[in-house]
Structure formats: structure tokens, C-alpha cells
């Protein structure tokens, strides 16, 4: 995973709450077997509307998405994170993220920065009044800076550390393989295995 320290890019105001992962990338785009190539599916239905924010050339090269509360609800599809990344987004700012989306983002180097809703409103206002405004997101300082605004955001310490270091979770866990072996030895014998049995 690519390490994340600070990022500066055009902010995109998305005045929608409950942006579910079916909106971020509809199911028909989930059939690829690769981790890349999902940019065309990003907000596919909304992008067919001329008035959608990403169809405005002043926002189309945006990389910091500023969205309403409950971003990333619904399906667990990590394709939502891949599509945002493929399009060019490095940061999503919202006042509340769905748990699975937040976890997926943290695994892929997409920063899910949680700001107070009142601060999201300030960012929306600024980005709409001055389209093309650049937003700087500093993970070390946990701040969002845009124009005169300097706003704090929250992210849990562990995810922050992993993002700053660009660490691969699996390699970290495999350091503890001995502990896993020991745990496995203590599991009750009646727990099921998927090994086929008569009648299944």
C-alpha cells in the first residue's frame, strides 16, 4: 500500500447524504476480476446527469471528495474504494462513514477523514463559491486546509499509523503465526469444518 502523509488537490462538493456503495459503483460494474479499471463505473448513474458535479470541468480533476453524512453505506464491495482511487480521489471527507467502507478505504490508502457536519457545510460553501479551490489534507496534523479554513478531522490512531507507514496488514499478522497456531490448537473439536460429509 502506498503511504499517505499529505495530499493537496481540487475539492469536490457532493451535497448528498447516504451515498451508498451502489451509487459509488453500480453492481453491473463489479464483474471485473482485477483491482483496477473501475473509474468508468464511479457514480455511473449520477454521471449520466449533466448537472452532476463531476461533469463540471472545474471539478472533474478533483481528488478530495466532500460528501454528506453516512458515506459508503450498503454493500461491502471494495470496488467502491477502487473506483474512487482509479478516478483520482485520494481523500473522502464526511461527517459519518459506514464501517465497512471505512475499513476498506484504510486498506487501500484512501483517506476517510471524518469532519464535523458544520465543517463539511463550510467546505461545501467555499468549494461552491470558488470552484477549483484546492484542499490540503495533512494526516500527520489531522487537518483539512482550504482557503482560510483550517479544520480538524478524526481518524483512529491505528489506521493513521498504517496509512502513514503504508503497511501491509497480512505481513503484519503473519509475524504472529505462532500465536495463531497456538490458538488453533485450543479450539473445541466439535466446531465444523467444510470438508464434505455424508449428506452434504
Amino acid at each position, binding site marked *: 500500500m502506498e503511504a499517505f502523509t499529505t495530499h493537496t488537490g481540487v475539492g469536490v462538493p457532493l451535497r*448528498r*447524504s*447516504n451515498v*451508498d456503495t*451502489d*451509487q459509488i459503483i*453500480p*453492481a*453491473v460494474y*463489479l*464483474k*471485473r*476480476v*482485477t*483491482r483496477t479499471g473501475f473509474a468508468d463505473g464511479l457514480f455511473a*448513474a449520477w454521471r449520466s446527469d449533466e448537472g452532476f458535479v463531476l461533469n463540471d470541468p472545474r471539478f472533474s480533476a478533483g481528488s478530495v471528495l466532500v460528501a*454528506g*453524512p*453516512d458515506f459508503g*453505506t*450498503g*454493500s*461491502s*464491495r*471494495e470496488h467502491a*474504494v477502487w473506483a474512487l482511487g482509479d478516478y483520482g480521489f485520494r481523500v473522502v471527507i464526511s461527517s*459519518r462513514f*459506514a*464501517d*465497512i467502507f471505512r*475499513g*476498506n478505504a484504510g*486498506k487501500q490508502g484512501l483517506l476517510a477523514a471524518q469532519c464535523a457536519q458544520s465543517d463539511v457545510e463550510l467546505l461545501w460553501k467555499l468549494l461552491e463559491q470558488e470552484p477549483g479551490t484546492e484542499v490540503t489534507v495533512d494526516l500527520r496534523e489531522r487537518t483539512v486546509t482550504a482557503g482560510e479554513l483550517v479544520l480538524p478531522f478524526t481518524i*483512529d*490512531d*491505528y489506521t493513521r499509523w498504517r496509512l502513514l507507514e503504508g503497511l501491509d*496488514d*497480512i505481513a*503484519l*499478522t*503473519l509475524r*504472529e*503465526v505462532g*500465536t*495463531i497456531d497456538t*490458538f*488453533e490448537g485450543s*479450539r*473445541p473439536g*466439535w*466446531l*465444523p*469444518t*467444510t*470438508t*464434505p*460429509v*455424508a*449428506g*452434504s
Partner: protein
Amino acid sequence: MGRTLAEKVWDAHVVRRGSGDEPDLLYIDLHLVHEVTSPQAFDGLRLAGRPVRRPDLTIATEDHNVPTTGIDLPIADPVSRTQVDTLRRNCAEFGVRLHPMGDVDQGIVHVVGPQLGLTQPGMTVVCGDSHTSTHGAFGSIAFGIGTSEVEHVLATQTLPLKPFRTMAVNVEGTLRPGVTSKDIILAVIARIGTGGGQGYILEYRGSAIEALSMEARMTVCNMSIEAGARAGMIAPDATTFEYLRGRPHAPTGADWDAAVEYWSGLRTDPDAEFDAEVTIDADALTPFVTWGTNPGQGLPLGERVPDPAGIADENERFAAEKALSYMDLTPGTPLREVAVDTVFLGSCTNGRIEDLRAAAEVLRGRKVAGGVRMLVVPGSMRVRGQAEAEGLHEVFLEAGAEWRSAGCSMCLGMNPDQLAPGERSASTSNRNFEGRQGKGGRTHLVSPLVAAATAVRGTLSSPEDLPAADLAAAS
């Protein structure tokens, strides 16, 4: 202080307790795999030269992409076919048991696990699918994960996770006839909202929950994710044990006795404290339907389409306006007058045998209204076989519904079963998001009873809205 059910199951799976900000390392007892969220995970293993650590705790099925007609033919859509073929190759290469299209045990992953007896109380169950919460009905911690986590579980059989908070959802009283577990969960989501459960495991408790069958409990836990929760759980009891007894992977003999003894202790202690609590009055519940584009936008069927002007919160009002515009609904319209052209009975929420029986009971001796298409899609091939043994398929076919093979189907429209732009469905599935069932399609979430009655009347309805069936003509 005592512990909640969720805390007991969590504690029993901690491989290594995290210190400070570190997450715990949690052992995973069962990993369910399907074709959509796994190919990139298997690819990652291959790139790193890692094996699947416990293929014997892993099982795969084909469900999201598969067509529900002509399943003896190759999949017509080449991209879907590639994805299914990729799963087959990956399972063969890594030694994972797979139930492919056409297999007697193929079906929706969350129907297959329980029916095989692989889902048992006190386990940890994961799958690259948010509706994994279904398995919590057995008193297991079951939750959806992303593809990076799928790869992590394949490689290590563990996940680094911080403990979830706990919320008690007390459902007390007795459901009236015609009111189902689907109505309970839609009412819960309408109450706490689509974000109300974020960070929580919900434990459904109370007399109305205890009275539910296992299948009805699965419907409740299935939609926990629609309230934003990571998981939903119900304490195992005699109903749970009876459901499991004799299933292919359930313990037998002395193992059964040891397991039941352990399972019987999986209850929230009387002095345990939840981080949050909500109470629902089961006596007051009536059939529930959604009017908007998220599962929290629901109301009793007897109500009218709400007026956004009456919503105080600016964001909520804006969201309701957007939803009504997408759904093409006018404030003040009685929900019972909303006409549909499609009825979908199926999905991991309501595609089990009891759901099919309930809908068939309503349809027996009746006809699907002119201009309405009704799809009946069993959750698994076993459910389909059971329904045919009971003659339910004949009831559906005589009523004018389509009788299909198993899969996720129109719940998310990854296969050819989709709504056309502007079409409107009453659907027993779990999400009414914009375009979920097909681009431009409109979805009202309902119970199987409401789905069947709606198919007959052509507008959102409950069985009590129907005139008596002509059972003589049907026999």
C-alpha cells in the same frame, strides 16, 4: 460485571489482545466465499506466494452473477462467465470446496451456510458480502468484509479488529397475524436510521424475537447492516438447537451434547450493560413498506407518502425530496395506492422455504394482476427442491408467477433479472437504493406476505386487503 452475548463470543476468539490503539487479532471459524468479491483476493495470494491457511474452514458458492433460467447452459454474459470461471479455477487451485451452478447445494451464500449446518452458535463468520450478518441469528458474530480482508482471512484465518460496541434491540410483545420479522426489522431501521447502528453489534432480544423461527430470525439479522450495524445477533435457544440437529455439518453424539452445553451459556448475563438500547413494541407493528431510496425511509402500509416540507432537518428534507423525485411519488398519496409492475420474492433476506410457503399461501387460488410480473427465486437449490416437494411451485405457476432457479437475482441485478428504467417493484430483498435492481428502477421493500398480496392487487397491499380466494377453482 457480566458480559453481553457479543462480548462472550468475541472474547472466545481473541488470538491476541491489542494494547492501546492496536486492534485485537480475531480468529475466524468460517469463511464464506462467492465469485464477486474474491478474485482480487486470490490474485493477491498468488502474487505473494501464500496458500489458503484453512481451506477446511472455507466454502464457496456461485450466487451473485448466476442466471436463474437456463442454468444448464453456459452463462450468456461473457464478463459474468469469466468471473464465475475465475472462482472455479481459484477454488481448484487453492483447494476450496465449491458449490457451482447446477449443484444441489448451490445457492445464495447466506442460505447455503445455515442449511448445511455450517453456521453454529458462538462462531465467528465472515464473507465478502455485507449481508453476512444473517448468520448472527444463530448467536454467532457474523459480518461482511471487503476484498482486502477476504485476502487477509484466506491467508491467516484471522482479522485485526477493534471490538464493536453493543446495542440491545428489545422487541417485546406478540406480532399480529400478517405481521412478520421483515416488518420488525424495517421498523427498527426506520427508528434508528441507516447510520444508527454504526460501530455496533445489535442484539435482538425480547419475547417477540424468542417466538420467531430460525428463518424469521435470519431475516431480522440479515438487515442489521441496513441500520449501519456491523452485525446482528440473537441468543441461541431450543429453537436454534432444533434447527441444527441432524444437519450435515452439525455435531453428533457426544460432540452434540458438548456443543449444546457450550451454546446454552451463550446469553447476555443479567448484569451485563449494553452501550445503547432501543425498544420496539411488537403489538403495535403493522406491515411495513419503504417509500424512499434508503431502507430507513419506511412507513406502515396504512400511511401516506410523507411530505418533505414537514421534515425539520435540512439534510433529511433534501434527501426526502431527492428520494420522492427518484421514486416518482407525490406526498399525501396513500401507500396502498402505489401501483407496481414487478414483484420479486427471493434474496438472502426472504428466499427461504418459510418465505415461499407464506407467499404461496396468499397466492393459492388467486392470480397475479394483469400487467404485473412476479419472479419467485428460491434462495438455494435445496429450497427450490423442498418447495417443489411441497407443490409450492405449482401454486406460483398457476397464479401466473415465474418459478426460477437459485441466486441473488433481482436483489442487485448482476444477472439478467433487472428492472427496466422507470419500472417499480415490491421486493422482499434488502435495499431500495437508486438503481439497485436495475438502472432507473424503483424499489419498495416489503415482506413476502405483502409481496404476494401486492402481486394480486397490483398496488402495495397486505393479505387482509384481498377478497377471499377461490380455493375451489384452485384445487
